[in-house]
């Protein structure tokens, strides 16, 4: 696979480290259901057969985390954006 790093250009996926689902969000540690929420966050996954938004770290490049949208059926990559932008946008909303 070649991941289109928005900073470095397309690179072989060997340069990246995979982390997994980019749609889960770290819950509040103080809520009454914190433990259940963290269980969901840490352990359960949609694991879709199809488009998957996932985190990759450009370990062998710019050291940026990316959110890559990729089809798990055929590995087609739709795009990659800096994780910072995705997760900062989350904050804004």
């Amino acid at each position, binding site marked *: 696979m070649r991941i289109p790093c928005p900073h470095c250009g397309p690179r072989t996926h060997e340069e990246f480290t995979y982390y997994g689902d980019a749609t889960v969000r770290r819950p509040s540690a103080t809520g009454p259901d914190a433990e259940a929420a963290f269980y969901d966050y840490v352990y359960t996954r949609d694991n879709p057969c199809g488009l998957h938004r996932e985190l990759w770290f450009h*370990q062998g490049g710019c050291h940026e985390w990316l959110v890559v949208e990729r089809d798990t059926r055929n590995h087609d990559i739709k795009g990659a954006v800096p994780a910072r932008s995705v997760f900062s946008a989350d904050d804004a909303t």
Partner: protein
Amino acid sequence: MSSRIAQGGAINRQQVCRFTFDGAGYSGYAGDSLASALLANDIRLVGRSFKYHRPRGILSAGSEEPNALVELRSGARREPNTRATDIELYDGLEATSQNRWPSLKFDVQAINGLFSPLFVAGFYYKTFMWPASFWEKVYEPLIRRAAGLGRAALEADPDHYEKSWAHCDVLVIGAGPAGLAAALTAARTGARVILADENFVLGGRCLAERRTIDGQPAADWAAQAIAELRSMPDVRLFPRTTVFGVFDDGVYGAVERVNDHLPVPPEFQPRQRVWRFIAKQAVLASGAIERPLVFGNNDLPGVMLAGAVRTYLNRYAVLPGRRAVVFTDNDDGWTTAADLVAAGGQVAAIVDSREPVIVSELARRFPDIQAIAGEVNGARGGRHVESVEVTSRTGTSHRIDCNLVAMSGGWSPTLHLTSHKGNRPRWDEERSIFVPDMLPTGMRVAGAANGDMTLGEALVTGFRQGLTAAASCGFSGSMPALPRVTEESARRVPLWRVRQALGKCFVDFQNDVTTDDVELAEHEGYRSIEHLKRYTTLGMATDQGKTSGVTGIALLAQRRSIPVAATGTTTFRPPYTPVAMGALAGHHRGMDFRPTRYAPSHRWASELGASFTESGPWLRAQWFPRAGETDWFEPTCREVKAVRSTVGLCDVSTLGKIDVQGPDALKFIERLYANNFATLAVGRTRYGIMLREDGFMFDDGTAARLAENRYLITTTTAHAVQVYQHMHLCHQTLWPELDVQFVSVTDQWAQFAVAGPRSRALLQRVLDPRCDLSNEAFPFMACGEVALRNGEPARLFRISFSGELAYEIAVPGHRGDALIRTLHDAGQDLGVVPYGLEALNVLRVEKGHVVGSELNGQTTAHDLGFGRMLSTQKDFIGSVLGRRANLIDPARPRLVGIKTVDRNAKLAGGMHFIPQHAQRSIEHDQGHVTSVCYSPILEQWIGLGLLTNGPDRHGEKVMVVDPLRGAETLVEICSPVFIDPEGARLRG
């Protein structure tokens, strides 16, 4: 060279190549393949089949060859299962037949043939079950010896390999007429083109046919095309290069046989090179593979694919048989008859399985050849075909003497690469072939690979696909004038098997799969094509069913009375042809298997004769033996004692170091670490633990507050990369709002532990005298910038892993070697001693510090005695799930110290705790010993372990058992801190 035709062919008759086969000497010419040279020397029997050990000859002239497999070369360079049809002849070539004993001609296991009624598909699933103990002892060894094909070398491969990357706009796979045409039009647009072909000569079937392009021989046209391509700067030609796999996003794997045409690669050159071609577009022009016909004894040497016969005639100038019978179900077979006649061979008959009307129409063109509308029922002969039995449509039978049967069951597009990404080909009922359907992104297909079987179609589709591929990359050009070519026809009426067979009809030659096997499998319910394949092993030999797959599918369809399209296909997977593992490994073998990381003191340590060991990627000094010390034990004890009594030096640069700056630096590390850092003052260092979000221990280390908004944190050697990545993850996805910057400075700082009662004295000699190291000015856990005597800057940390008065001093990486030498020299009269990992381990076990064997990913902070460090005042990674009842359960195995009750007894890591007097069984398993050492200070073996309810059991005696090695001993549970529990020494 009795079968060599006097003239013609793409061989160099000036360059004779001598070679041996089974020890006997022969000769051929440069440009020959081993197969053509064998045929030229009238060698017809080349190998034995897998199961029945039947005599086998040469079926094809290419990489689809199932039969003619040999062991090439000898000794450490022996290569089993090498296709004679692929090997380029070189002077000194050495080949040996395989899978036969004692000789190729008299193979004892040919007796298997007599039992063939027993050895049907799946027979082994039905027997060898009784008695149960006989399988491994009797049956399996017999089967294993009989199975397998060639013998692998046992010695290390003396050759080297490498891997490389190449980028292009258009990759053209196959340099036959379609591929050359595609490369030409693409390259003329200015696009960057790579043209690769598995053969050692580019040209494909242009070299094998007597056809013309614009009035000139096809081979000449090909030579001109190649010359033009060679003249273009952005075109790269790769002969001897098989594109073996298609991977995601335009990555194509290829292997270039750089020097396989030489006895030994020239000095400094690789034997083979794996290429990763990165192509925006690809044109697949891989041609087609001819199908054998299925009739009795169709595996006899001398029965050959008709197209291969033409290759031998036209490209290699070899007449594979003097008297031939051509058996075909299509027009192309007739071309072979014509070529045979043209080459001076005799064609005894053409047997065409189609309607008499077609046959007689074609026969008009060959007035001298007997044409029979009918079929070959079987071939006869011992180790070679001697005659065929033929039945005509009218019912008359003939026996025709011959020593060559040229058979043609039509051509199957070589579309393997179109389906490597999971796309399945489509059955074209009209032409009775599978054709590419959905293609991998960026791939197009031209010529025979797409079912366009004639030369004219190959050129047109090649030109067109080359042009469109280039256009997709933004390059434009125009179609050249279409050349005039010899007329030909690819009409075919498929004959999947003869109606009446004499003898075994082979579908998969190498694996000895016959029509009977296919029928039996279907009968027994193995009806899916995948079941059929797996049950009969059809298509699973080294040729991966290149000549048998389509026939197998068609026969299954016939048997099930369903259309071929409904039967489906098996999946083609990389590699297209087998690839040497060495080529895929490339440079990364032996000592270069993985990179080695050297600590800054490495040269100094090796000068001192240190013994080194792997620590992850690092090579670290294990101990520093002195004259007379022969094992690890003496130097280790000596080094430990020195640290406890004088002063020791140890390179600790391998710890991960991350420099964290910015206004939110404190907030950031507060969230990363489980313990409190808010109260850490500038100029002070604190031990810290990190958890994973699931609440288990992740890593430990120290954080030094270098300035108001600057912290230097350390990680364990093992987790340095993971912690750094984790910090980025946390910053970029969890807390992007934090204004914090950090970078790994592991390599920037060479860092040495100076440990022992005289460490202060030693440091005072190397530091600027103005530097105050007194307890008041620089107490335990202090940190700061200092200067060396020569004025160079350094950092000093008063931290101690050994439990002694100790410091760690850091200088920029390139100054590390100088500093360690300065320290070592300056401390000679203080008794300074370098110490290695073994002593470091003893020192830390004596102090109860945990390392990787305790931080093993299965332990919690509570397990390791850090429970009280966990902050309850803040949220940090792991704070929520770390509170789960099961993670803080006191009954979990928790950290303890152990010492042997018998002071002479030894301990070993991995022993398990069992209560004294309890049975040595799992119900009584209470944990395990994580770390052990011989403490030269306590003069006995001690250790650390994880014991159920451990901290509550100090003073109790427990067995530690090692049933694996038959050892056990009684230990006393104690605090993990064996030495100086009050910490007086390190504060000294």
